């Protein structure tokens, strides 16, 4: 790229600058398929048994719909006993995935940060405490040890504490598109030298109140499963010595206030992501889709992709079929699915993939990814 100065380059010229790739050095996944990319690949390739029942203390209180829960996770085995007293599911998923992602990586704490997608933090924690404030005779006697876990950056903060990560520590909310917004956020921070390396991903937990909220909104198709888990990736500008799991190219987002234009909004995000990745639309081998179980949005996403690519994609990956609806973590799970399959069955020639996401208010985002070369 030529070193044109900002004052002479127009916005449009800068917009089409092809981005430098970022590299995924490692991945940490906690999902209904189990721990890690291998378990996920096995599930995606038709192995393993999917359960549809909720787990946990409030399992009996769930609505009548399938749930793809993370099962049999022994938190103390992974994290030790220290500091696990008030750990909610959300944070335990986040901590366990980050422990895996940092395995064997030399970390410079001052220059390493976290960018994590969330919906509203831990629904289980804040609904429990809120219930207490409304039912206790002395509503101010809520548990002070648990209260700090009600803030939405609690998981991100605890990841930093446990791993000594003193760099930027961002939590990003964007509904269905939150994970892709986190990747966009991370790309900007890395390109400006705000950190040398970032842990980027998304995490989502299930609970009876959250499941009822989904159930009552009626946005999910009949029989569509709810999901949970975490997928976190080490993202850095330099190619990792041990080889990469993927190259991340451009990530673009667009907001569309009018529901009639949602599909066009996604098409714009996809086209811009392709352009800034230096990728032609015919080069996309596979699209990892987001809103495959949501009434109305599913068609919006399909249409937006078709408009941007000039036809139906050659292949699609529907991660929610395996893991259920993981909402703010879905973009991270969509990436994890691609990485899992590439790891299990390395492509003969490099694959270029597209990850898409659309949300109910008009958020749309697209990320271009390449398999390792």
């Amino acid at each position, binding site marked *: 790229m030529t070193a044109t100065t900002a004052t002479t380059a127009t916005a449009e010229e800068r917009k089409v*600058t092809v981005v430098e790739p970022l590299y995924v050095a490692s991945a940490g996944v906690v999902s209904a398929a189990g721990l890690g990319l291998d378990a996920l690949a096995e599930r995606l390739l038709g192995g393993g048994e999917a359960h549809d029942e909720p787990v946990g203390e409030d399992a009996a209180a769930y609505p009548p719909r399938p749930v793809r829960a993370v099962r049999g996770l022994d938190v103390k085995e992974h994290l030790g006993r220290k500091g696990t007293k008030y750990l909610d599911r959300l944070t335990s998923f986040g901590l366990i995935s980050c422990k895996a992602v940092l395995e064997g990586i030399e970390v410079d704490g001052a220059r390493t940060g976290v960018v994590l997608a969330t919906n509203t933090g831990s629904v289980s924690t804040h*609904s429990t*405490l809120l219930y207490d*404030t409304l039912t206790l005779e002395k509503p*101010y006697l809520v548990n002070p040890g648990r*209260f700090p876990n009600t803030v939405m950056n609690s998981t991100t903060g605890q990841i930093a504490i446990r791993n000594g990560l003193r760099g930027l520590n961002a*939590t990003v909310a964007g509904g269905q598109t939150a994970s892709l917004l986190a990747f966009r956020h991370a790309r900007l921070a890395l390109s*400006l030298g705000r950190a040398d390396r970032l842990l980027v991903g998304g995490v989502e937990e299930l609970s009876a109140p959250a499941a009822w909220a989904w159930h009552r909104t009626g946005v999910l198709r009949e029989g569509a499963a709810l999901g949970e888990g975490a997928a976190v990736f080490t993202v850095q500008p330099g190619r990792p010595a041990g080889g990469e799991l993927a190259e991340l190219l451009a990530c673009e987002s667009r907001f569309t206030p009018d529901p009639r234009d949602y599909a066009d909004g996604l098409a714009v995000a996809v086209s811009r992501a392709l352009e800034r990745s230096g990728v032609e639309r015919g080069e996309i081998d596979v699209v990892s889709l987001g809103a495959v179980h949501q009434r109305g949005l599913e068609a919006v996403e399909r249409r937006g992709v078709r408009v941007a690519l000039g036809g139906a994609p050659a292949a699609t990956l529907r991660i929610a079929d395996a893991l259920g609806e993981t909402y703010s973590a879905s973009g991270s799970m969509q990436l994890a699915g691609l990485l899992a399959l590439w790891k299990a069955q390395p492509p003969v020639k490099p694959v270029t993939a597209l990850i898409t996401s659309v949300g109910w208010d008009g958020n749309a985002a697209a990320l271009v990814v390449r398999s390792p070369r």
Partner: protein
Amino acid sequence: MAETGPARTAGKAAGTYRRVVITGLGAVSPVGIGADVFAAAIRAGESGTGPIESFDASAFPRRNAGEVLDFDPADHLKRLDPARWGRSGLLAAAAARLAIVDAGIDEGQLEAAGAGAIMGTTSGESAVVQELAEQWIQGGLESIDGGLAGQTPAARIANAVSSELLLSGDTQTIPTACSASNYALGYAFDLVRSGEAEVMLAGGADAVNRLTHAGFYALGAMAEDVPRPFAADRSGIVTGEGGAVLVLESYEHAQRRGARMYAEVLGYAANCDASHMVHPDAASIASGIRAAHEAAGVDPEQIDYICAHGTGTPTNDATEVAAAREVFGDRIPPISSIKSMLGHTMGAASGFGAIACCKALEQDFLPPTAHVTEPDPELGEGVDCVPGVGREARLNIVQNHGFAFGGNNVITILGRVS
């Protein structure tokens, strides 16, 4: 956290980034609605806290909060249906509407500039969640209202702004608790300086709610009556709410349309204590302040004023002053807390701080710390918290603090536009 990273950062040489200025302010606050009303109240040291009206606080030992009592969304909003959005989103959208009017920029110009909205929050749509919890208790989980449940995502705060103003650019909510507005400001600044957009809206919003109130009381962090940051007899925070939005614009874009420029965003830094969820760390904050100075290209002696995080808890204020002492030595700039007047507006707090900084630069005054008669001698020599009411002063470069649970520190540096 140097401003220009190593050579690999996309081949950009130093100096190729745009200058970014603040051209519009929107405040929906406990001391008034509108940036000028807000600034006058701050300067006068007015109190925006009083008996809680938004929920039944009769069972609580402490019953004060900084609420925006005169907020009617219909007064401000052209497009959003108040029945479809939560209070936090409505506060944000109203503040955004005020901010673009203040900036003299219209929706067509915003669209052409690729504008979007980056909004911070602590508790998202907490008033909505509180209503759902009440339904749960009354009729069981199966009785909760689906429409209301659809209003709970934190993302809807930034979405409310972009929906109200028909923005198509980056729309992201950053729920990094009580430093969230500063984070949003920083991220929006990065988007504009790197050329992703010519204009961005940034700020934050939160609503007073039962859980936040109960939680801060349970932590032993709640003031008996009013917040008295830096005072010897300070006893904690008073919860607050509001919407704070700033218009960030590339210097060229602002100049081309002849916009008033309140301030230039000189730089910022974000770091994490990585030590404790709720206890701030002086060394880590000091390191964040130094990084912000380096990013902004300023020396400590150039800082004329610090708009403190200043919650008014014994620990926060002592830690914050200790961190400042570590960086500034014996010459700590005047350091005051507008939380003394607004209460702790959570995710909107550092947004209100940034607005106060802009108005202080424009109108030549130091914002005060209200309710302080005797500054705390334990804080050591040379701490000027501007007690009582504002003071006339010509300021050039100011520093805005935001610290949060989780150890999230974000420091923004604003300067008079040269």
